[in-house]
């Protein structure tokens, strides 16, 4: 149980702004790898050798020490093989994993929510190895070229691998990240003429993808089944040109009377790049009845729903049926403070993965140009309104005039901020709740209906073209 004085939804925003011990040092070593990847490892320069040595030093006290020492030496000599690149990615991932843990410990103090035990990695079944080898080989080519050295020839090497991987559900994660990454690189070619290289981001995607090429490395299989009541909090939407994912954050109340738990349920789909914005929901909606429940403001009753130790439900509609009306803000006020969070799997520990449901009220709002800041108990907490999707009725204006906010606490570029999922605000003197994911299950809103129709038309045209041309 959470002690009453820490619970009750009172957030210690002051703790979020305090420095986290060791974080800067860990991130400095990450930056060293990131600089190495900007220039590439075909013909390493002395500055890159220094950066590689800094990485080796940073993990010298860890079990990775000897593997990384060898890898950085070979890389500095321009002689790194695939295993050496994997070792560099592993070292970088370990550093960010430790940053994640330190940040989550701080989040635990600020929210009063206990930090869950970690879970051990379990070897999963091996996957189609040839495709993994092909993907790894492409990623190593990228590392040799460096972001400044990428051109269309290097980047287009991903296309065939991705096409072959996408149909296999076991390879979908790797295919999805490769696809989004390759599209971003293609749009940035040639690397030599880029104004600015997103070094941290691309190195994140590179190391993430490289580790996913190790068979079963990041698999987190479902190990239990859940029976009880699911109370949705809100929807977090993700999208790149050719994929979209909707992730519902919710509180699960076990039927056996156990403590409520924070869980997530997701649905993702590959998509043509011309299906965007509110048009995305119709691709996802038929596969996750929970999206409809979110739009209708309902709970759902689960029977034997499979779940992973990370708190991810592996949704299948046959294990769920619509329940009683449930207001997300009421859930946030009453149940969220007592809910426990699931641990994060070893390889999923990364600051970009931090998305902790929080409830805020009694704050003041500052608005300067495009930035919004909540002042919570005298301490500033930046609001990431850019992450509120256009595929819903929640707008930066609604957030700016809100008095209560249910959101996800995230960490990016050196500070915590909150991504709004739903707010309580006043429209024409009436109190209303506006949800970012309100259109997930369907909408009667004019703009939403228009966007859905445009996307449906686009899909219809492509299907017609596919029908005539694909068979030939």
């Amino acid at each position: 149980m959470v002690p009453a004085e820490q619970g009750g939804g009172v957030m210690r925003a002051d703790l979020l702004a305090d420095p986290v011990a060791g974080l800067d040092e860990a991130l400095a070593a990450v930056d060293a790898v990131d600089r190495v990847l900007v220039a590439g490892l075909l013909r390493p320069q002395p500055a890159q050798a220094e950066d590689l040595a800094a990485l080796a030093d940073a993990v010298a006290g860890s079990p990775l020490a000897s593997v990384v020492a060898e890898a950085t030496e070979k890389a500095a000599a321009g002689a790194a093989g695939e295993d050496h690149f994997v070792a560099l990615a592993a070292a970088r991932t370990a550093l960010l994993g430790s940053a994640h843990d330190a940040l989550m410990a701080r989040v635990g103090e600020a929210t009063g929510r206990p930090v869950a035990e970690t879970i051990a990695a379990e070897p999963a079944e091996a996957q189609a190895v040839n495709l993994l080898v092909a993907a790894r080989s492409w990623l190593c080519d990228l590392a040799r070229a460096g972001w400044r050295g990428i051109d269309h020839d290097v980047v287009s090497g991903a296309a065939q691998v991705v096409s072959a991987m996408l149909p296999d559900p076991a390879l979908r994660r790797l295919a999805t990240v490769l696809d989004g990454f390759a599209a971003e690189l293609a749009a940035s070619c040639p690397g030599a003429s880029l104004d600015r290289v997103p070094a941290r981001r691309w190195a994140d995607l590179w190391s993430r993808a490289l580790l996913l090429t190790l068979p079963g490395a990041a698999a987190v299989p479902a190990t239990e089944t859940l029976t009880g009541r699911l109370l949705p909090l809100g929807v977090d939407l993700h999208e790149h040109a050719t994929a979209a994912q909707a992730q519902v954050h919710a509180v699960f109340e076990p039927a056996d009377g156990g403590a409520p738990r924070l869980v997530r349920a997701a649905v993702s789909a590959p998509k043509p790049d011309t299906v965007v914005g509110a048009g995305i929901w119709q691709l996802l909606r038929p596969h996750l009845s929970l999206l409809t429940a979110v739009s209708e403001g309902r709970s759902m009753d689960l029977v034997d729903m499979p779940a992973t130790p990370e708190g991810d439900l592996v949704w299948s509609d046959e294990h769920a049926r619509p329940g009683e009306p449930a207001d997300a803000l009421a859930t946030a006020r009453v149940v969220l403070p007592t809910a426990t969070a699931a641990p994060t799997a070893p390889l999923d520990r990364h600051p970009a993965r931090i998305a902790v449901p929080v409830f805020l009220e009694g704050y003041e709002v500052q608005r300067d140009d495009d930035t919004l800041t909540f002042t919570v108990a005298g301490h500033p907490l930046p609001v990431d309104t850019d992450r509120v999707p256009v595929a819903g009725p929640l707008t930066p204006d609604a957030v700016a005039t809100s008095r209560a906010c249910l959101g996800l606490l995230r960490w990016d570029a050196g500070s915590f901020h909150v991504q709004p999922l739903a707010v309580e605000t006043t429209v024409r003197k009436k109190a209303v709740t506006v949800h970012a994911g309100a259109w997930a299950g369907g909408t009667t809103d004019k703009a939403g209906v228009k966007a859905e129709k445009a996307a449906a038309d686009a899909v219809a045209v492509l299907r017609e073209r596919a029908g005539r041309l694909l068979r030939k």
Partner: protein
Amino acid sequence: MVPPARPRKLAKVPFVELADGRLQGVVSSGSDIERVYVSSVAAGTYAFACSTNNNRPCGGARGGFCNHILALVREAVLQYGAERVARYLRVEIVDAEPSEQTIASTMMSARPPQADSAAAASVFSRFLRHLAYLELAPTTLPVPEMQWFPPSRAVA
């Protein structure tokens, strides 16, 4: 982060992309429902090509841009924004904002060469690959990597 594409009507130009160093895509024939034109313009040189899916050269693309290529420029500007299209094709526009018209006229006044038809096969196969995205099944297994791809309110 790449800003998301903007929605557009696909009836005339079902596929357009900035890839492989070219603006390239597929334009539906106005007269024959079974026929499409595969068109492309190279970045930098503006070397252009247009042929049907059965590898017949486009009659309009002798000596200069045909209507299919102009349609491709128009739809690319709708989908990606004029600035990104101009930057990708390395079109430098003097004394004006990039737009469908200024991009097309700047390229045409450079008297671009006609490219061989080598690109057509790869453009068409990229179009078929794009269509295949419709046939892939959604999954409810979590994809944690998508955390790196948040939506953005920024427009292209």
